[in-house]
């Protein structure tokens, strides 16, 4: 089912949660709504489900307007953040609920419901837990029950509100890969709300980055990570070094130091801010270009697949984070206390009017 969100605005009292939001989701896509808490992502999800009503704007599912349609008519599966499992029902009864409440004319037979529940529990690998109560399950298991329950009514659209938010890091990782595989099998148009950028980038086909009720950028994980449209997206997706500086004659002027900047085209005298990801910084033991930044290695963490360094430079008030491959690190033979010279392989400059330093 395709989704069209058309100029949707939602306010709670004086607070604007969604500000004229537009979004299109294609049939069969898995889209993540990503942003910090309070950015409006959950409200947008609840509006799509029919749990909230927009103050302005319209919602289309499969080309038909559903803005005023009741939730029961939308055929939407919703997975709640805290699962909202029925605590007095067994796992099997929870999954069967949506089928049991169908009007008698449409309700499958008891045996058919049983089969279906069995199949769904198989899908989420919980057949053995059918007779347990929610309180007897782990968080990850509960999450999968909630998903099976939502899928039982054969929704055309699956909405997941921070589905892995309450789980620990390891289970979260497993579950989101599993969700991705499940989606590849079922092809239900799915929208996932999350504040965890790693989760969004790993699980979704496309990522919608939201901030203060606005959509900042929509794109594939690769697009939003490599080509952030706004400073917010840059900072929200992964670690970043921020240099408050001014662009002048093709160079970033930051204090008295200069970083050469081939990526920046024209010059201007506006207040600007330069963003560089830690892995886009290159180090050399000696000055190879005139405008490299001189810095001292303060801290080295070589545990893990990549080596993380923290540099201190007169030119930057903040420590500079650098990420190197193991090979490059061995080549450079850097140790704590060494003086190194830094230049960016890639950077982004955003004009930030009114942001005085």
């Amino acid at each position, binding site marked *: 089912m395709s989704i069209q969100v058309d100029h949707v605005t939602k*306010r709670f009292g004086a607070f604007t949660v969604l500000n004229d939001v537009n979004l299109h989701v294609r049939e069969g896509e898995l889209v993540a709504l990503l942003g910090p808490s309070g950015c409006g992502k959950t409200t947008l999800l609840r509006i799509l489900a029919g*749990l*909230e*009503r927009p*103050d302005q704007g319209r919602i289309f599912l499969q080309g038909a307007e559903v803005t005023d349609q*009741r*939730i029961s008519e939308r055929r939407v599966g919703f997975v709640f953040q805290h699962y909202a499992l029925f605590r007095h029902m067994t796992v099997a009864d929870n999954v069967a609920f949506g089928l049991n409440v169908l009007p008698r004319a449409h309700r499958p037979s008891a045996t058919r419901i049983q089969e279906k529940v069995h199949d769904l529990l198989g899908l989420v690998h919980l057949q053995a837990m059918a007779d347990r109560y929610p309180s007897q399950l782990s968080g990850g298991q509960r999450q999968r029950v909630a998903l099976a329950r939502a899928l039982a009514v054969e929704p055309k659209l699956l909405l997941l509100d921070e589905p892995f938010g309450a789980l620990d890091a390891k289970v979260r990782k497993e579950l989101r890969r599993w969700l991705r595989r499940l989606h590849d099998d079922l092809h239900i148009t799915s929208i996932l709300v999350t504040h965890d950028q790693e989760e969004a980038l790993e699980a979704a086909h496309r990522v919608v980055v939201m901030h203060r009720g606005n959509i900042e950028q929509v794109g594939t994980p690769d697009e939003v990570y490599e080509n952030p449209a706004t400073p917010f997206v840059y900072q929200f997706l992964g670690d970043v070094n921020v240099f408050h500086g001014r662009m002048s004659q093709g160079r970033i002027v930051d204090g008295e130091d200069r970083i050469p900047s081939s990526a920046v085209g024209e010059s201007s005298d506006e207040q600007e801010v330069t963003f560089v990801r830690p892995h886009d910084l290159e180090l050399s033991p000696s000055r190879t270009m005139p405008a490299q930044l001189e810095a001292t290695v303060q801290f080295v963490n070589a545990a893990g697949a990549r080596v993380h360094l923290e540099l201190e430079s007169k030119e930057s008030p903040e420590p500079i984070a650098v990420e190197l491959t193991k090979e490059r690190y061995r080549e450079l033979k850097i140790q704590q206390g060494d003086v190194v010279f830094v230049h960016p392989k890639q950077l982004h400059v955003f004009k930030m009017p009114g942001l005085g330093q």
Partner: protein
Amino acid sequence: MNLSLKQPSVLPGFGLTLGFTLFYFSLIVLIPLSGLFVKTSSLSWEQFWNIVTTPRAIASYQLTFGASLVGAFINGIFGSIIAWVLVRYHFPGRSVVDALVDLPFALPTAVAGITLTSIYASNGWIGRYLEPLGIKVAFTPLGVLVALTFIGLPFVVRTVQPVLQDLDREVEEAATTLGANRWQTFWAVIVPELWPALLTGIAMAFARAVGEYGSVIFIAGNMPLKSEITPLLIMTKLEQYDYAGATSLGVVMLVTSFVVALMINLLQWWSSARHMNQ
């Protein structure tokens, strides 16, 4: 849409349930209660004032409010001890005692009245030991106090108990590691936490006692000017078909009850606000 008095929700039944709630409550409670004020308004202020300030009425206020207040404070002290013992210590029969604390609440007041009277009468189980000491309980104002203390007992225990239960042991441990002894910890750490709940409990016991009728009339002796409580005076006036008198005294009691109820609400608001800040 934004001006509506209710936030939208997907759950149904709001109109039905709220409508029924308001209809039923108005019919049973609000309209009859307002009748009391309507009836009083047919009196002039002077008539009203004369009725509610007769010596007999004033004596009944003194007894009703005085005994209720003293009883509430007695319960404040012993109720706190009982709550403390029930929460902090383990001893045989604890769960039975815990359940029995609500007895004054569950026991019909008439039953409480005749029982307390027979126990505290001069030949009763307890009265016979008090008589030689020159203490007469039944058929005196002291009997009123006994009855009002009895019916107020659950309130302090049941308001202090949950707060004591939720009290974080770590805070006490912290006080101990900082060098406080048990007594200092009690006064500096525990009492400030209990204070709002204790006051609420005392106020609730007081409010209950002020209106109490059944348990008091048997033990009080009901001598005008001496051991007659205000609710009984209202009853007497009703039996004499003195509706204006009964209504006026009823208004005095009702207004007092509402003031006390308002104070209880403020106390509860205060204590919950304190907990929010933590």
